[in-house]
């Protein structure tokens, strides 16, 4: 079984302490909300968990049946939706989906693409260039890309950013559909999103 262990994690930027002694473990079906005010290190913690930044202290271990996984092994099983993650503006929504699926090693059919776009409320907009998308549409497309990966680890940084009410409902539906079989990590400072996860990790205290 897939498992994430965050062990005594700490991060400093020069003399500034961002956070320290962060500990939690998650297996599929479990979820955690990383909460705290702006600048408390929520996105930094997500990047550390993914393995894109180096912690000052502590470590993050992804394992499968007790065997530690290398970056490439857990990267394939991980999807991220974040304001810092952009998609290709010079490609259409469908081209983005097809490209990300293909480099991840998956063949995706036109029907599957249409179904994903419908799931995030972008039906009929798949042929538009992403550069012409509004920020809310872009956020929806990021969810479609994450869903196409069918990941076991779903990391959502500010999950409702730029979304209208129907977008927020779509996100709730996505989270509910994935909750049972995925490790879910949500970084947010929106109080109503705290309830999307079972546990909380408070930063900035």
């Amino acid at each position, binding site marked *: 079984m897939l498992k994430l262990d965050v062990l005594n994690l700490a991060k400093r930027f020069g003399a500034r302490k961002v956070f320290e002694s962060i500990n939690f473990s998650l297996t599929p079906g479990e979820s955690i909300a990383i909460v705290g005010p702006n600048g408390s290190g929520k996105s930094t913690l997500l990047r550390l968990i*993914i*393995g*894109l930044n180096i912690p000052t202290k502590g470590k993050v271990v992804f394992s499968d049946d007790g065997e530690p996984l290398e*970056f*490439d092994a857990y*990267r394939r099983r*991980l*999807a*991220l939706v*974040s304001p*810092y*993650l*952009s*998609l*290709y*503006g*010079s*490609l259409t929504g469908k*081209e983005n989906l097809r*490209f*990300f*699926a*293909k*480099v*991840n*090693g*998956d*063949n*995706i*059919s036109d029907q*599957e693409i249409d179904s994903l776009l419908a799931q995030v409320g972008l039906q009929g907009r798949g042929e538009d260039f992403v550069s012409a998308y509004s920020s809310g549409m872009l956020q929806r497309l990021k969810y479609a*890309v994450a869903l*196409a990966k*069918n990941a076991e680890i779903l990391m959502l940084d500010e999950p409702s950013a730029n979304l209208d009410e129907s977008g927020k409902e779509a996100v709730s539906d996505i989270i509910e559909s994935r909750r049972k079989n995925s490790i879910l990590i949500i970084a947010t400072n929106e109080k109503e999103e705290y309830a999307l996860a079972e546990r909380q990790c408070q930063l900035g205290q």
Partner: protein
Amino acid sequence: MPSGNVNWVSKVLAVTEKDIVSEFRTRYAINAILMFALVTLTVISFAVGAFSPTKEVMAALFWIILFFAAMSGLAQVFIKEEESGTALALKLASDGTVIFFGKLLFNLALLFALTVIVVPLFIILLKTEPANWLFFLYAILLGNIGLAGATTIIAAIVSKATIKGALFTVLSFPVLMPLLIAVIEITKSAFLGGVFKDIAAPMQLLVAYDVVMIILSYLLFDFVWRQ
């Protein structure tokens, strides 16, 4: 749900195809490269119009044009990903080897497109042509592979820096020095109509340079790309 049966080569080609499609739509790198090449060619043709430079000088001029034109565009392959924020999505979507070879192929395609335009213009404007076309093709083929190999990894390194453009040229120049010396030597022989004995040593150097540079870049890339 999507089925996972795409092989490594298809993934690499998907990265190259994405970059080519993006490049044709945005003309982010190709405009800079072509404009630089055309301006340099025109300036040189005016400058040497009144007299005939030696074949040795012609060989050097040819590679100066290609080198600086390439410097103005090849770095974009990673700088664009970092500046637009798509690098993070790409890091999570595929492993480093796929990205490296996809980008390397794109840079190679860009260099060969540049060469196809520069060579006839160079011949027409500077009123010269290689006496030995085979040597000239060797020089272009091996020179472009080495240029693409070295600049792809350097582009990945400088894409994290603040002063990307200047740093790219400064870092590339010493790394590309052996390649430029060898390739100019072969091109000189091509213009002078030399025999194979004249280019054996620079050819060996060039082949070794290309192999070492691509293997080293491949080994280093994952470390550079993930940080």
